[in-house]
């Protein structure tokens, strides 16, 4: 697959030029891209704009952080802790002071965070997906903000400091998801392997019967319903799926970073995800992938400086006004002149008033 080749090439390039530190940002971009491609399917194929997906990212990340930072050995009296220890679901390590501690195995916490996300997104999704247009946008925005405030205000979630010293995620033997620079290359491949797997899943979904149903829904919900497509069920399923993608991205990034903070659930992060999906083309997974990679990398490397959030806000405005189909469509991909030409076309086509 072309993407896999590109991934390997990039790593080889990075190693050769001795700038392996960029791999860290690429890994982080990879996990964020996982969120973004899930959101692409939701926004592009079912037309539901969700400005609250950072909330799901945070649910995934915080669940795994809370679970894996609780010392089970100290809680041995509680039946749940005893259960986990007995069944080998805990990982025994030593803490910096040399004492034995045990925490929930990251595999378990990943499963738990996915389950919790599925439940929450299912419960939230049922009423939210009945809303239309800007009511849906504001409701998802509200959901994201609730998560942000809950996370910011609870001692369990570390309030403003977040949760840190999240242990690494041991996959098998020496292979683990961790921020250790010695494991950088391995982590890069792990992250992108997961992203590729996710994309393969989504592409298969889109090309299947379910995918055609989704495209029908996006084209016209009433028509799709008239043809017998269970629109409510499909919309809800995709909502939950995209939430799970976000949660997995959140959980794994938390293990990679070793910490998570309340800013990961903020509105500006959600705006960032929506902006990237929009600029890559609403229903274009490859576009979102490219743009997600590029823009997250720039942002993480710090090239955007203190104008980070403003950049994504501005991009969202420009895209929504001038390029609602995204920047990477056929007419704009031609060349730079094509970009300017389409911009001129849109500006020339304006007429009076703003009515839709």
């Amino acid at each position, binding site marked *: 697959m072309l993407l896999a080749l590109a991934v390997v090439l990039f790593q080889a390039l990075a190693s050769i030029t001795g700038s392996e530190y960029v791999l860290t940002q690429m890994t982080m971009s990879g996990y964020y891209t996982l969120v973004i491609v899930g959101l692409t399917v939701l926004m592009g194929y079912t037309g539901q*704009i969700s*400005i609250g997906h950072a909330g799901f990212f945070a649910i995934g990340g915080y669940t795994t952080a809370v679970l894996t930072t609780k010392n089970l050995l100290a809680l041995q009296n509680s039946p749940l802790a005893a259960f986990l220890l007995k069944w080998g679901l805990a990982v025994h390590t030593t803490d910096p002071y040399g004492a034995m501690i045990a925490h929930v195995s990251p595999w378990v916490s990943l499963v738990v965070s996915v389950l919790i996300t599925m439940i929450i997104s299912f419960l939230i999704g049922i*009423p*939210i997906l*009945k*809303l239309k*247009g*800007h*009511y849906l*946008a*504001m*409701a998802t*925005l*509200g*959901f994201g*903000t*609730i998560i942000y*405030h*809950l996370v*910011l*205000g*609870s001692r369990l979630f570390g*309030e403003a400091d977040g949760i840190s010293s999240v242990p690494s995620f041991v996959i098998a033997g020496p292979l683990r998801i961790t921020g250790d620079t010695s494991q950088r290359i391995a982590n890069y491949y792990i992250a992108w392997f997961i992203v590729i797997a996710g994309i393969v899943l989504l592409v298969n979904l889109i090309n299947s019967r379910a995918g055609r149903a989704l495209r029908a829904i996006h084209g016209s919900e009433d028509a799709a319903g008239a043809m017998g497509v269970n629109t409510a069920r499909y919309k809800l399923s995709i909502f939950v799926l995209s939430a799970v993608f976000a949660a997995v991205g959140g959980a794994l990034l938390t293990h990679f970073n070793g910490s998570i903070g309340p800013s990961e659930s903020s*509105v*500006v992060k959600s*705006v960032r995800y*929506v*902006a990237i999906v929009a600029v890559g083309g609403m229903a274009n997974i490859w576009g979102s992938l490219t743009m997600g990679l590029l823009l997250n990398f720039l942002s993480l490397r710090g090239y955007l400086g*203190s*104008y980070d*959030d*403003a950049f*994504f*806000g*501005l*991009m*969202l*405005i420009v895209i*929504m*006004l*001038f390029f*609602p189909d995204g920047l990477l469509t056929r007419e704009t991909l031609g060349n730079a002149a094509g970009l300017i030409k389409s911009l001129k076309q*849109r*500006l020339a*086509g*304006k*007429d*009076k*008033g*703003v*009515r*839709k």
Partner: protein
Amino acid sequence: MTFEQFLQYALSGITMGSIYAIVAIGYNIIYNTTGIINFAQGEFVMLGGMTAISLNFFMPLPLAIALSVAIVSLAGASIDILLIRRLKKPTVLNMTIVTIGLSTVIREIALHIWDEKVRSLPYFTGDESTSINILGAYISPQVLWVLGVSAVIVMLLSVFFRYTVPGRSMRACSANLMAAKLCGINTKNMITLSFVLSAAIGALAGCVVSPITMTQYDGGTPLAIKGFAVAILGGLGNSTGAVVGGIMIGLLEAFSISILPLAYMDVIAITILLLILFIKPSGLLGSSEVSALKDY
């Protein structure tokens, strides 16, 4: 709780509630003429306060406030002229998302101009320590200013919309844009006027509440969300509903402090927003038949 405590909570709730109501009325004005939810409404409030604080260094307070309102109104007009008029047939949803992006950009610009420091205007009458005793509850005279200014704004707006020609033209635009155009009303200018009005009342509200709640660069977003919740609660487009809804949410927030930890106070308004959206999106004072007929 004692009667004095009850009154204290109630007055605090009504104060913040009237600010939310002003923001909601701003939403309603723009929604009525264009159907767009202007998420940057909260930023107008923040900008009004910030600009007045900066101007106050050079000129006396009343002049600073008046000039700040003018500047923010200009900003509102330029948002309309530069952005909202741009597109041939934008969907309303696209425009709403544009305003969300816009609020982010405005917030970042404010951060770069004014730093992250928390500032405030000086109290209009007296200072931080003056307080008036009303039946056992102690309030600052600024609270009376807030309530007074909000009441004046609401009254002036209803007079404007009912008895003046531009006001009635705007109501015509909200009823039916095409028909208004046919009557010779310049709908583009009316839309700009609605942005100017929303920005102006937002700025004024920001100035008058600044001594009590302080102003900082990210104070706009919570106001925008809560103001939207109030607007929806009262029925989108319904200004009486906005006032009622604002006072209700203000009171709920104030009394919630006696039950919930303070950190969760902001969650109340959003939860109410979600509940209303799920149960009765037309709001308390809106009619469900009318809102079902609307295109947006």
